[in-house]
């Protein structure tokens, strides 16, 4: 019997998890999982950028059935459909180094520690941990996928994602 796994967004110092099934990950200037239009990203003035708070996503096992997971990863289809001037940066963060997002992402490490998420594909994915992780009921596993959105002054405002993008989490289960 395969484990039941869901994608959770984590916020706060605790942190507290929110199941994202059916809920948008809303990039904003606040640390919460609320899907609303408060604290929106804004098209920056010429030569500037607007960065969101960091979003922390993680896999969470609902029912485990004695399963074990390894080789956990995240990837995209390799092509951003978010539009001109929008970049999504990503990196993996261990549970021990998680810190609550209390301000906009700084932009430090873009292109080195933070990479364009759409550069990670099924053939070259972002590792979220080799494991193995012994899964347990109602317990998250592997590292966080941290992402933030960056707007350039070339973005067209008001901007809504016009293309449907799909992020994939993968793992090997025995």
């Amino acid at each position, binding site marked *: 019997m*395969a484990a039941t*796994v*869901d*994608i959770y967004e984590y916020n706060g110092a605790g942190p507290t998890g929110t199941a*994202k*099934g*059916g*809920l*948008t*990950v809303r990039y904003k200037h606040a640390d919460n999982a609320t*899907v609303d239009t408060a604290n929106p990203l804004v098209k920056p003035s010429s030569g500037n950028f607007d960065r969101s708070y960091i979003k922390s996503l993680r*896999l969470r096992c609902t029912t485990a*059935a*004695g*399963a*074990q997971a*390894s080789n956990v*990863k995240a*990837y995209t289809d390799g092509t951003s459909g978010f539009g001109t001037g929008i970049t999504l940066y990503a990196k993996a963060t261990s549970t021990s180094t998680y810190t609550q997002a209390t301000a906009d992402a700084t932009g430090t490490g873009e292109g080195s520690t933070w990479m364009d998420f759409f550069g990670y594909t*099924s*053939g070259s*994915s972002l590792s979220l941990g080799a494991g*193995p992780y012994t899964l347990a009921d109602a317990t998250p596993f592997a590292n966080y996928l941290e992402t933030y959105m960056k707007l350039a002054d070339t973005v067209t405002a008001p901007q809504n*994602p016009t*293309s*449907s*993008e*799909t*992020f*994939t*989490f*993968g*793992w*090997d*289960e*025995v």
Partner: protein
Amino acid sequence: MPAIVDWVARLTDGKVMNRREVKSLAEVPTDRIEMMKIQTSHPGVPNLGVKVIPGSIVRVFTRRSLKMNARSGQQLDDGSVPVIEVCPDPGKPEVFVRLYLHPDGILLSNEDLNF
């Protein structure tokens, strides 16, 4: 989605392990498997036998994926592809041959495929 319905493994010391005895394939010593018989729900490969050359490692796992629509947040179809892997040299785990029991077709590959 195809799945591994049942399996039985014979170890090099003659011991036989099967799905009814152990909770997970993770409990099977992969370096001591001599032979495996695997029953799957895949119509193309309902029964599969793997005879292992001594010194090789055989692993059976399910490559799972969970897709999330970034616009709607909807979690899409949960991908589940059973994989049978034979690694001829335990010192080189990156060298392997895998049989991916993908619902759209069976793939025999020496590459790490994600779906």
